[in-house]
């Protein structure tokens, strides 16, 4: 079916290459590479940009998801909860080539959401007594109980993967590939979605939309993954 590009959001990869620049921050959806947009990862690699700050759940696997960008040494800093599945991240961290900010997973995703929701941050007691988490952070006491101040995260560009997008950018996700995608979708100053399918306006049930289109700036169609999953 012909899709009308009513909101000028649907585009090709070459139309958005100009958004990517050295030194920028990029937030990505996905969890262990699942739900990370493969075409946009390749676009970033092909664009040649470097010195990136990457923000997302984890560093995927060496050849899967955002891990490909880490492996190619394009990142100078990552803000993640986990790098265990990508030994390259650990190696570059140890060698001093990569700065790593660890955030507990539940805190990290709330920080991403806070950025997308226009909040300054959140208060949590997770990591209150753990130095890796609490160092250099402010605390607030409420009714005698202490909380860490965890700051909101935003990024110059967010890249997300969806099952379906309509021309407004309304998104639904695919099973556990949803994970951090709705959060990254909101937190980018500019958000690009790579959708497995672009559907006509009005075909998504208004009840089932997970990410309202207003958060989305650019929509590209996915060609699927070009990596092999760990279990394959």
């Amino acid at each position, binding site marked *: 079916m012909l899709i009308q590009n009513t909101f000028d959001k649907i585009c090709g990869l070459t139309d958005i290459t100009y958004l990517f620049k050295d030194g920028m921050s990029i937030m990505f959806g996905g969890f262990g590479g699942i739900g990370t947009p493969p075409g946009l990862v390749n676009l970033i690699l092909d664009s040649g940009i470097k010195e990136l700050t990457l923000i997302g759940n984890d560093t995927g696997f060496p050849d899967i998801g955002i891990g490909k960008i880490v492996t190619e040494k394009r990142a100078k800093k990552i803000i993640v909860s986990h*790098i*265990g599945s990508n030994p390259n991240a650990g190696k570059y961290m140890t060698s001093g080539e990569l700065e790593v900010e660890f955030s507990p997973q539940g805190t990290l995703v709330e920080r991403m959401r806070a950025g997308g929701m226009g909040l300054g941050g959140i208060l949590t007691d997770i990591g209150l007594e753990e*130095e*890796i988490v609490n160092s250099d952070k402010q605390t607030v006491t409420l009714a005698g109980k202490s909380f860490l101040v965890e700051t909101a995260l935003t990024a110059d560009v967010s890249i997300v993967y969806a099952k379906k997008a309509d021309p407004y950018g309304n998104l639904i996700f695919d099973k*556990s*590939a949803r994970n951090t995608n709705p959060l990254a979708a909101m937190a980018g100053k500019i958000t690009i979605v790579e959708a497995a399918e672009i559907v006509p306006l009005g075909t998504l049930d208004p009840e089932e939309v997970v990410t309202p289109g207003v958060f989305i700036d650019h929509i590209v169609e996915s060609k699927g993954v070009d990596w092999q999953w760990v279990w394959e």
Partner: protein
Amino acid sequence: MGLGVEVRHKIARRAAMEIKDGMLVNLGIGIPSLVPDHLPADHTIMFHAENGIVGMGKSPDLGKEDAHLCNAGGYPVTLQVGASYCDSTAAFGMIRKGLVDVTILGALQVSESGDLANWIVPGKRVPGMGGAMELAAKAKKVIVLMNHREKTGSSKLVKNCTLPQTAKECVHMVITEMGVFSVLADGLLLTDLFAPFTIDDIKKYTEASFQVSDTLTVYRE
């Protein structure tokens, strides 16, 4: 963990006894993933995954994998009846609010007072804490399944954790190949003994001090 299949299942079977119908349960990788094998077929336990699944089922048959339906480790799973997907904030909201009834995970060290160290070996392995801090700090019951000792022979049940702590005073129960310990307000209590190990064996290989239950359960081989 360097334990034989039978021992691993013995530990998993014991852990399964702590799970009741209707509970929400989060299982770590390794031995914890064997726990569902030891639950009744008609149970109504729901399994939680950090990547946004409530009601995660067993592995799919070969060839039936779906790359977009995986557990937190990235491996294909199926769904239980009554399952739902959510984003990562909701998955962790449940944990922080204390709605996870039981979490079963591995550990590097557990202290006498239930402090947990399970995410970092400084200078060697720094994978990041992932969701371990939330699960350890907030699950209603934290059960650790681990080898009793390091490969070097040193006890993993310690007086005080020497590795960086994941969460303080969070562990409720420790199950090793030798026995089961409850973490009580006044210290560790050995409640179950896996023969052929003896109480003396455990005393010998355990740095932490512990009491022995008056009603010690002994599992014959």
